[in-house]
């Protein structure tokens, strides 16, 4: 891989960082490192000093006898002291962790699929790339990660960020790049033979350059939302999930983030993982008031297609003046099977 802007070929001790959060993490790291160095040095110095100062002078010399001689005060000090320090670090680290788990509202949503042994990335505009992630500077970027096969981990050292990409669900990683350049992308969860080659680059560009790049040579399909809509029709989802009174299935508009009540009394907050599960495993979470009649699409949709469907569903706005089909309605109608997924679009 040719060295690019931002790589530091002579490996200094302090790695580059490209976001505020990375700087915060560095601060936390070097503070804890300082405490570690302090205590390690203290113990080492004490050991060396005592070793020399109290060196045995004759074969029958004994130490100064202190039977059970520990004062509660001393022990308390070195129990409470380290505990306070450690919990302090815990609190600081937890604060950063929580912030890392909560992308800002204006973050742009990207999708990443890990697969042995490559990273497939999809931009908000629909443009796709492999093993490379172009992002604009100064814009919060949110990645929705999943895997097609085994557990991978998306690692951006320059952002001090990583999150596992797990098959069967979505995980999130976000950052806001504030430094231009090209930096490493690694897979950080052992995934088989070519694990060490599942690497790539993140390229941070000026926003105007990014726009130019995105609008340029079209490497992906049509915009994700548009192709999601085509799929929605092609797979006959619209025959049940519809906005008029013949709907046999829950309304999908405004779904993401909504609290959904399930059969059996539980509630769940609809997120991408929930939607994905409803597509491949619909019988497990049936919405209250509806029959478990949705067929499973497992094996019939690729991870990319599922993502496109999720993007489409996420883009559906609540239509004004139309109430979602009330619960009891479905039972009143005569028995009618849903169309098989193999049926073509109407």
């Amino acid at each position, binding site marked *: 891989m040719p060295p690019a802007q931002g790589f530091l070929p002579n490996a200094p001790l302090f790695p580059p960082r490209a976001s505020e959060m990375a700087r915060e993490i560095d601060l936390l790291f070097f503070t804890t490192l300082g405490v570690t160095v302090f*205590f390690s040095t203290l113990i080492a110095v004490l050991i060396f000093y005592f070793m020399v100062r109290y060196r045995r002078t004759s074969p*029958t*010399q004994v130490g100064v006898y202190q039977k059970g001689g520990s004062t509660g005060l001393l022990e308390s000090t070195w129990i409470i002291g380290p505990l306070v320090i450690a919990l302090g670090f815990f609190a600081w680290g937890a604060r950063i962790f929580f912030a890392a788990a909560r992308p800002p509202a204006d973050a742009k949503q990207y999708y990443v699929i890990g697969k042995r042994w490559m990273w497939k990335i999809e931009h908000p505009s629909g443009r796709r790339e492999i093993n490379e992630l172009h992002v604009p500077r100064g814009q919060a970027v949110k990645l929705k990660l999943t895997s097609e096969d085994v557990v991978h981990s998306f690692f951006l050292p320059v952002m001090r960020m990583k999150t596992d990409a797990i098959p069967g669900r979505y995980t999130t990683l976000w950052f806001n790049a504030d430094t231009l350049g090209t930096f490493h992308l690694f897979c950080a969860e052992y995934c088989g033979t*070519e694990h060490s080659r599942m690497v790539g680059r993140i390229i941070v560009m000026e926003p105007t350059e990014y726009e130019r790049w995105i609008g340029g040579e079209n490497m992906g399909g049509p915009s994700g939302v548009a192709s999601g809509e085509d799929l929605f029709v092609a797979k006959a989802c619209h025959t049940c999930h519809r906005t008029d009174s013949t709907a046999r299935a829950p309304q999908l508009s405004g779904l993401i983030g909504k609290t959904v009540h399930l059969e059996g009394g539980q509630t769940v907050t609809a997120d991408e993982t929930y939607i994905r599960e409803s597509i491949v495993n619909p019988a497990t979470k049936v919405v209250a008031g509806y029959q478990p009649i949705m067929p499973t699409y497992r094996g019939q949709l690729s991870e990319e297609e599922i993502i496109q469907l999720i993007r489409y569903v996420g883009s559906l706005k609540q239509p004004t003046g139309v109430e979602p089909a009330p619960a009891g309605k479905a039972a009143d109608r005569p028995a009618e099977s849903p169309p098989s997924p193999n049926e073509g679009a109407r």
Partner: protein
Amino acid sequence: MTAHSDFPAHSAFPEPIEEAPEPYEHYLNHKYGLASWLLTRDHKRIAILYLISVSFFFLLGGAMAVIIRLELTTPEGDLVQADIYNRLFTMHGIMMIFFFLIPSIPSVLGNFLIPIMIGAKDLAFPKINLLSWYIYAIGGLFTFYALLTGGVDTGWTFYAPLSTGYTNTPVVLVALGIFITGFSSILTGLNFIVTIHRMRAPGMTWFRLPLFVWSHYATSVIMILGTPVIAITILLLGAERIFGVGIFDPKLGGDPVLFQHFFWFYSHPAVYIMILPAMGVVSELIAAFTRKPVFGYHFVAFASIAIAVLGFFVWAHHMFVAGISVYAAAIFSALSMLVAIPSAVKVFNWTTTLYKGSISWDTPMLYALGFIGLFTIGGLTGVMLATLGIDIHVHDTYFVVAHFHYIMVGGAIMGYMGGLHYWWPKITGKLYPKFWSKVGALTIFLGFNVTFFPQFILGYLGMPRRYHAYPNEFQVLNVMSSAGATVLGLGYLIPAVYFIWSMRYGKDASANPWGAIGLEWETTSPPPVENFDKPPVVTWGAYEYHESRVQPSLPPPKQEVMRVT
């Protein structure tokens, strides 16, 4: 009969005498022949059997480490293919953890010393002790056979669905080997617990026990509670591989993160199985080579128990970025901070023991002091890893690799080496050359630090774990690490050579070559078959290094009343 002190009288402080004793019968010359070893019930002989087997696996694991470090001197994967490399680090981890570190101190030193230290003739269940060794050997044979047919390439952590559906290597065979060996661990732990509860000599109350015994008691509790869980995890893994049932594979309705929970529920306490015995050794060494009671004996004893208990509540700190909820992550991070504290207590207590001690620079002490320093570094970097904000960056990088090698090699193996050097005269009746033993200790210490310290930096720079090839900018530190590994490897060869040499050519050891206090030093080197000529009665506490021992005219220290428990 020479060279052992009288009791129950308060014995005069024994001087190290290095004259050859007259020949007498002891556990090594009591019977000869292969059958007398392979069918022995003597805990001392079983300890020797373990010594030979764990050394074999240490050699295997070490050889793999050599190839790994050799490969990593260059950024490209040019020494071995990626496939082979993956098998190498996997088998290195498996051999070292399951077949060396976990059994080493408990099964070699613990087996040999616990009955003697508490004044018993043997463990509570000698035949089960022998069975433990056979189970270990059979499990080891399975895994060794799997190694010969190519080994596994899943990483020692066997994460699903990689290990259940994406590899053709003999996962089930290796898993079976580990499963079987786990029972060896369980039976050893069981034996120790019953022995310590029921077989103590008259007068040996709990708070007179050597801290070595306390550590092994805590270790045994972890062994019996944790090991069955990895056994079940292995069974589930095997079932999924063989029958295609979807426990962990999401394509069949399973949950890959569930595997991680199951796996780490055992594997985290397992690391305490590996370190607690070494801490026990260090307590003994510090006391003996400062000739002072360990400062804060009760605190150190309870700290062992605290580590064992708390260790069961922190497993998900291996899973902070694995998609668990932020609240769960926070709880596990906080608990992980708690578990660091008892270890800190021990380090402070050991260091304070040195104050106004009479410190010998003998080789076992060098290892003990090395342990304290390196364990402190390893442990504190563990606190750094438990800090959520930091872990996001350094999880699954060489920072973690450096951390656990500091604890396992800089800690546990140094403890093991220190123990071997301290009790070698007792076990074999022979002395090893002092000069070379110090050379060995120093070489190991230096080699170790040059190998693993650069890895902390590599990890922070972003080099991930288990990488066969890496970006150019990581090469300098990798070369440094590999250079250190060469020195470290040589360092381990030195004791191997002189230990074997000493068995034939070493000077004979007296009962108490170190001038230490403890029941094991009140019997011959090597001990008789039933450990003592007369069953001891204990009327003094642990580590009673008191002036009255050197000058009997002085009054002895005040004793606690011997309780009838």
